[in-house]
Structure formats: C-alpha cells, structure tokens
C-alpha cells in the first residue's frame, strides 16, 4: 500500500492562525484542504512537507454568499460538490458548474475544494509518477531529487541540474496547468481574495498564475486563497468544454471556458475566453475574445475566433493525447463552445 510520509500536523482554527502557522513553519510547510492533490503527491513523494497546515478547521473558508445580482462570494474551502450544486451557480454561472462537475469523480469532488482546485499543482507525465519511477527516469526539473518538489522558490536549490524531460534544452519546467475551475472563473471575470502575513489583496483569478511549471502561483508561501469572488451574472452566458479520454477521473488536457453576453440587438457585448491544459498557466485569450465584441454571431466569426485560439497555443507532449491533437482540438472546442452559447446563428 502506498502510504503517507511522516509529517507534523498543524490544525489552525481561524484564517489568521492558518496564515501565521504557514509563516511560522516556513517554506517546509504546506497548506492542505481537501487533500485530493496533496496526499497522492505526498504518497508518491513529489511533496515532502515537513509541516502540513490543515485548513479543514478554518470557518472563514466555508460557505457561499450573495446572489446573481450582487455576485457570489465562494469560500475557498467549499467542496467542489458544494460549488457545483449551488443553485445560483448552476443557473447563472453554468460554465463554472460544468467545469467543476467535470473534475475527476463525484466522490473526489466531495473532498476537493475550489481553493484547492485553483492551487492545483501543474501536471506532467514525467512528474506525476511514483518515487521508483522518477528515480528510474533520473528525476525531472520540477522534482529534481528524492526529497520532492521544492515547495517555494526560496526553498529551491540554487542550481537545478536536472533537465525538463519534455523539453530537455529548456531552462524552465513545462508542466501543465490542469485546473478546470481556473479557466471557468477567468472567463467569468472572477477574482480571488488572498490573505497573507502582510494582509490581504484581491486579484483577478488569472493573475494567480505564472508561466512556469515549477513555481506556477503568483503568491507567497504563506498566502492563502480565502475566497473566490464572482461578478454579477447580469445576462452572462458561459460554458466549459473539456477534452479528456474518459467521462470521469481524467484531468483536462485541453479546457475551453467562454463567457459572454449579448446586446439587445444580438451583438456580443463582451466576451472572455480562457484555455487550460495547453501551457503552464491557464491562458486568457484576449485577442480572440476581442474579435467577438460588437459582432453578430456568424459561422465566419466563430471560425475566426477558433483560429485565433488554435494558432498561438503550443501544447507539449507531456499529457494524455498527442500534443498536435490537443492543439487541433483547441480550435474545434472553441468553435463548439461558441456555437453552444451563440445558438443557431453561429452554426456552420
């Protein structure tokens, strides 16, 4: 049986305590909420935190407040099941509900949290392997020794000699952003409230991420995602299209989230389009979205947007499905997502 490595357990009972615990324990500490990403990685010795700071006893992270007019405030500790089954989310933010419902399996969604999904470690099929497998490979840049992943940039070895296995000449790691929630929230224009030792800040969800497979989060080690803030729904249409081999379990190897609204005369008033599974961070496709604004839906418009997503994305060969296939599907999935939202006028 794969078992957890030993660690020391800290269970703060408030957000303030949690942040302070992370700060106290330093870079060898990791927060854990649902554990569905952290524990498998600990069992495979990708993570070897000395301290685990459990967020399960933190009441401030629980609960969903607000409505479609004011916007929703979702506690980062809400389970994925709670988010996806919330009536306001289902009715007014269907793209988010669809994305969350596509995560892994129902039983896992009962455990995993929305905050955890936003902080989901980047994935790579050279990295998401057991200790013996990675030893046989000779490790990889993201987990360069048996000690596991360097938890924070400040804890990383000064000189990492191990190459990225998917792009051996590259100075960086190319592990893939694999959160379904992130692109859906980015498309909806959601923000994240972070709380850290130096206070709190609110950032657009997309700004949580860096284009780096190793250190992919723009937050300090002791900062926690406390809440997700959804803007008022206000006529927003949204959807999420996910490429994966099976109807359950699988991470996105391409995820396309679109949100938009139409004017009274049927023109696109605004649109946001986010893509995941093709780079180390989820990508907000601003140029593609801009093509939509002010336009009436048509097959040509949809095709132009699909091309504007297809051309720049550059997936690498480190997930399920061939990288060239994922790239090709990016265009197809954008087209299908837009056709779903724009209706018959957009269909070819």
């Amino acid at each position, binding site marked *: 049986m*794969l078992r957890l490595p*030993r660690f020391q357990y800290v269970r703060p009972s408030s957000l303030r305590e949690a942040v302070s615990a992370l700060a106290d324990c330093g870079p060898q500490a990791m927060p854990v909420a649902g554990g569905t990403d952290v524990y498998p990685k600990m069992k495979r010795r990708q993570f070897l935190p000395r301290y685990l700071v459990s967020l399960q006893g933190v009441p401030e992270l629980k609960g969903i407040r607000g409505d479609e007019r004011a916007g929703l405030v979702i506690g980062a500790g809400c389970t994925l099941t709670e988010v996806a089954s919330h009536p306001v989310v289902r009715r007014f933010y269907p793209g988010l509900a669809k994305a969350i419902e596509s995560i892994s399996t129902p039983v896992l969604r009962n455990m995993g949290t929305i905050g955890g999904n936003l902080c989901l470690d980047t994935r790579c099929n050279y990295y998401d392997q*057991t200790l*013996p497998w990675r*030893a*046989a*490979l000779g490790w990889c840049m993201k987990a360069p020794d048996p000690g596991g992943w360097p938890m924070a940039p400040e804890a990383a070895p000064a000189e990492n000699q191990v190459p990225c296995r998917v792009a051996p000449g590259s100075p960086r790691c190319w592990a893939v952003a694999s959160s379904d929630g992130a692109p859906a929230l980015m498309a909806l224009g959601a923000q994240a409230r972070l709380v850290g030792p130096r206070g709190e800040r609110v950032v657009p969800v997309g700004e949580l991420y860096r284009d780096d497979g190793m250190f992919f989060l723009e937050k300090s080690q002791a900062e926690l995602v406390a809440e997700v803030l959804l803007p008022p729904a206000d006529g927003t249409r949204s959807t999420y299209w996910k490429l994966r*081999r099976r109807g*359950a379990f*699988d991470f996105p190897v391409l995820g396309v989230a679109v949100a938009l609204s139409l004017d009274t005369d049927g023109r696109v008033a605004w649109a946001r389009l986010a893509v995941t599974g093709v780079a180390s961070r989820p990508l907000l496709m601003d140029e593609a979205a801009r093509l939509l604004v002010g336009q009436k839906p048509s097959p040509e418009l949809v095709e132009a947007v699909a091309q504007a997503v297809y051309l720049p994305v550059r997936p690498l060969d480190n997930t399920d499905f061939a990288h060239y296939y994922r790239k090709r599907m990016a265009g197809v999935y954008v087209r299908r997502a837009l056709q779903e939202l724009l209706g018959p006028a957009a269909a070819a």
Partner: protein
Amino acid sequence: MASARRSLNVVGKPLPRVDAWGKATGRTRYADDLSLPRMLYGRLLLSTQPHALIKRIDVSRALELEGVVAVITGRDVPVRYGIMPVGQDETALAVDKVRYAGEPVAAVAALDEDTAEEALSLIEVEYEPLRPIMSIEEALRLPEPRIHDYVPAGNIHRLASLEFGDVAQGFAEADYVREDLFFFQGNTHLPMEQHSALAYWDPAEGKLTLWSSTQTPHYVQRALAKALELPENRVRVIATPVGGGFGGKSDPFHHEICAAKLSMLTGRPVKITLTREEVFYAHRGRHPELMWVRTGVKRDGRITAMEFQAFLDGGAYSSYGPATTYYAGTFQTITYRIPHYRFQAVRVFTNKPPCGPKRGHGTPQPRYALEVHLDKLAHDLGLDPVELRLRNLTGPNEVTVNWLHITSNGLRQCIERIVEASGWREKRGRLPYGRGIGFAVSAYMCGAGLPIYYNDMPHSEVQVKVDRSGNVTAYSMAIDIGQGSDTVIATVVAEVLGLYPEDIRLVTADTDLTPIDLGSYSSRVTMMVGNAAYEAAMKARQLIFRAAARELGVPVRRLEARDRTVFDRRDPSRALPFAEAARLAEARFGLISTIGSYRPPQRLGTYKGSGVGPSPAYSYSACAVEVQCDPETGEVKVEKVWLAHDIGRPINPILVEGQIEGSVYMALGEVLMEEQAFRKGQHRAPSMLDYKSPTIKEMPPVVSILVETDEPRGPFGAKEVGQGPLLCVIPAVANAVYDALGVRIDETPITPEKVLKALDEKAKGGPGRVGPERKPDFAFREPTRVERPPGWPHYRPHEEG
C-alpha cells in the same frame, strides 16, 4: 449427461452466486485482508534500468534501519522457475542482470510498511547499463545485446512454422488474393485487487503455507517448491478469493517467493502486497503483436488458402509465451474452413515486463487481424461481410485442417441471431456518415487439452462428502476469480443431489485439502471441474439412492432427487428428506465420500505444436457493434453492442450474461483506449489514472443472446463463456469505424488521433488507413508440413486415440 435435461431444477436458473453474500457484505477475505500475529510487511526494490548488469548491491544500510528484520537479494533465491517447463527463466529477484525497469532486485521485511519502504531507499545498487531492446523490430534486427543466453540465437525466444495441406496449391486455386498487415498494441489486465501474498513458514513442522491471490495454486505450489528447494508436499498454497484476475495472476510471482523466503529467514509471517505500479510490472498481459495475413478466395468468397504470420513482443521472460506463440495461429481454423493453411510465428524478448495470458490468451490479436482482413476481403468482392463468413463457416462434428476436433458448433445460429437483433441488413452501409455498424465472429476453447507440464494425471478432481447431518461438501482446487467457479461447482452438485446451490459447502483452492484442479485459466473450469463434480456427485447419489430405495421399497431407477427430497417418481408420496437418506446411506456404506476425475479427450494431432489448441469443445460468438464517430474530433463512441454466444447450455444464465458483459467491457477498453506503452525504456503510465480503463460512463448497452447447442462433452451441455465473447468485439468495432467513416485503423487502440490521421489522408486522396506499413524482414524456417486430416473437414471418430 444431456439426459438430465428434461427436469433440471437449478441448472440454467438465474440464481444468485453462492459467494454473492460474502461479497455484498464485505466479509469475503481477499489476500491483503489477512494478517497473522507477528506478521512482517515486505516490500520489493525495483530495478531503475531496463537492461543492465548488476555490479553491486549493498543492503547493509537497510539492515541497520530500526524495524528492518531481513533483506534478501537475488543471490538468496537464485533457483530458476517459470510457469512452463520450457520457460524456466525467472528468478524471484534479479541475479546479476536486470531485464526490465521495475524488475525486483531486493526484498525487505520490516515491522511495518513505512519502515519497509524507507529501507528500500537505503539499498544501494550499482548498474552497468546495456542497450535496451524495446521493440519487435529491434529484437529481430539486433542479435546483441542478448536478453537471455539460453535461447539458440539473438533475442528470438520461440518460433513456430507449420503448414497444413498445400498452401501453394490453395493459392493457385484462388480467384482473388488479398494481404494485410495489422498491429495489436499490448495492454494489461488491471485487476482492481493488487496482487498480494502472505507466507508463513513453520520451522517446527518444516512446512510453508502461502495465502495468495492466484489463479493457479497448483502451479504456484510447484514453483515455490522449486525456487525454495523444498519438497512439494511441504508447501501448501491457499488461493484466496481473487479480486480480478483475467489471466494476470496465473504465473508464479516474485512477491510470492520473496514473502516465503523472508518468512523462512525470519520465522515470522510475511505479507507482500504489490503497489499498483508493481502490478503493471508484474503484467503477463497481452502481447504486442504485428501480424500479416494473406488469403486466397474463389469469386464467391470461399477461402482456398490462408497464410498467417505473427511477430510477438514477449517482454523480458518466457511466461506462457511458448503457448502464446502457437495461439497466434491456432484458432483461425475453428471458425472458418481453411483448406490449406500456413502459420508462422516468432516471439522475441524485449526489455519490458513479461507478456503472458490475458483473457483470450494470444487469440484476440489474430482474431482482430483475421476479422478485419475478411471484412476488407468482403468489400473487395462486393459481398456482405456476413455472407462471406457464412460461406466459409465450420459446422458441428468437424475436424479442422490443423486437427482440432469441433463437437458442438453454434456459430451459424449466433450469426443469424445477431444479424436479426442488430438490424444488420438494414444498417450496413446505410447509416448516415459518422455512424456505422461492424460485425465479427470468434471462437475459443473450453479448457486447454494439455496441462502446463506434461503428465498423465487428471486435470481436475472433485471430492463430494455427504455427512449424517445431510451436509454436502464439495472439495476442489478450483479458485473463483469472479467468473463464478464456486457457483458452477455448487450448482452441478446440487442439481445431481436434488439440493440447492446454497446447500453445498465448498472447500476450494487449498493444495493441502482439495484434490487437483490446474487452475482458473484457458476457460477450463466449467468444463473440467464441472464434469469432475458431476461424476463425484453422481456416485454419491447412487449410494444415497440405493439406501433410500431399500427404505422406501422402490427400485433405484425410479428414484429422483429434488427440493431436498429423495422420492419415487411414480409415487412422490413415497419420499425421504435428503438428510434422512444420507443417514441411511452412511449407515449402510460408511462414509459417503465420492470422487470424480476429469481428463480431456486425447488430441487428434500428433505434430510438434499440436499440443496448443486441442480442447474438449469450442465456444462460438458473433457480435455487431454500432458506433457514432465524430469526424472532426476522431472520437469513437460505441452506442450499442449485440453479442450472441454459443454457451452449449448455461449452468447459470446470470453468470453467463455477466461474463459476456464483462468481456465486451474489456474488449472496448482494449480497442479504444488501453495501452501498455513504453517510453525511453520505462512504462509510460503505470497508474490507474493514466492507464485508461473505461468508466461506467463509457459502457454502452449490451444485448446478450445465448445460443444453446447442448455440448455432449460439457456438464449438462455447458461450454465456456469467460473469454470467448471478448474476441469478436475488437474487430467488430474496427469494422464499424470503417462503416461509419470509410477509414481503416489497422492498429489498436483506435484512438481519435489515428482516426483523424486516416481521415486527413483520405481527404488528400489516400487510402485512409493507419496501421503498420511493412512486415519485418525475417526469414522463418521452412514450415513443417502436416497432412490434412483424412476426409477433412468431416470428422471420423475411429481416428480418435
């Protein structure tokens, strides 16, 4: 036996499995559920190299770790073993050389698993890497470095080269000849239960007991005795209920021998449960196989000759490979009359986990090639693919060109039922673009006619004991791996004695307590154990009837047993409860303990290689699959499967349907997504997440149709169902994709990438095919010429024996 047909009481009834209650309550104890006082936990250290010499192993730091009790390496267990007598090429831990990444090189026993795992990281192994051989082509091309020295040359493990009749003449008679190349990707069993073994060596008695999740306790007993240099009668193997086998638990395994050795060294029980990753390395799954087939036909589609060549990637060890090599060419002839047939195969060693028997053992690959090839032939000839097959079908009571004796044969009925149920004639070629229907047939054996090691003894023996409480116990070494062997034994014995399956107490799968059964492989259990159980129960019934006849004052021949009562058929009021009749019998005859033994019929063929293929009977299947393909994404969605299976007669129709549905499931996984694939010498994805096993969301509805042919050699007319129905599903999907999109994917799995590639090629005016392009340049030796059976295809019984 068929005489019992008129009044069957429990046979053929949809009764619950006898082991269902234990399984539905969590009471069934699988191997890893067992623990013993003072038990140690064992773990294996895996090779990091696909091919290397071991220069040095230092276990001293591991031994110093607190809680570690023993550490062993290859030198501690150097005796070679293997499932087949000709394939004794494994050791429990690698000695001097490793042959695949993941091969165990050392084993640790510790007070707990945390410590055992930590100890692994303290073992130092120094390797001198050798060039890994990772493909069939490399193995054929590179004589060096050699993976094994014991085979005559290079990395060629086994060869087969046979010709039945005169192939040159057959092709000369043909109006049309077609040849095709196919590749079948390797895949693995992925049982939900990880292999697990608990060993206990009793130093005072000098006896070893091993509880293990194994399909073959008898063969494990033999291998343990050999590897540990113990007399066989000092080794007791108890097979625990197997949480999924599919052929993957049919070999003796490293962890079984290591657990035993560690127990012998420490005097304490030792349990080793494989991690999921290690299950992928234990493997013994489907051989990757490159196949070339060439067929000559008359204008009307009748086959005049066939050549079949197969190149098998065996992985690093023999396992069942010598048999698999022959299975690549053996069963083409039991579905179709092939007047002249040449079959050549080569199995190579590569630096990958060993391949072996997975459901259908060696026959899904050639069946896929054959059935897609025939589909293409039919299109070439402008024939309905069903019609082409109907013109070439074998029938009952035939002998094949390679000397296999077909008794019952329901293939024609299977085809007719499928054509009708699926709407084949209305749908084929007429569904909208993207939607398609495909068809294929297959056949499988009901138990290998020969044992793994040569001997003259029965393949299966059953004891039935009836005691004075009226309790009936059946003893058999058969192990239920989920296929329902316990239920089959209980049902057969209950039917004969007029009881219900739940009345039968079973003692199974214990080499000390139960008489032989060779194991749950080759779809042999219903046929062989069923017949042995029938014989033993009939003998017990005879004694009980004699005692009852005297008490009731009626002749034995008028007695009947049912509903737990023995009674006069003419006057049912003259009756005794079964328990009372049992007491009378014990009073008169002493202990009522009877035996049954089963030996398969003598094979007809005597040529070298004729040992693979003979079986008491063959089951037949036909299948139609309807798919919806997305030409833009290449995705193939299976909408519905119709599968007709010639079961002979079902002992329990729920079990039969369950085996059909499970076979369809496993086939769909193989044809659409599963791959045991490698990259840079390593398994690409040894995890449940990355090895894509279909979920409940991928499973289409299945229409199961049971065709009954009343097999004269089967218990109550029964034949196998555990493996046969898988075979035809794979090519039927491939043929359906062609019907839907007009492209041929001649390589499994049929992934969206391949479908799109074929469509792109077709759009550019190409043939629209993805598959292997060329046959390896390999010179098979001249085939051994075997005369056709006289009077082929008609069977002449006097030639038997």
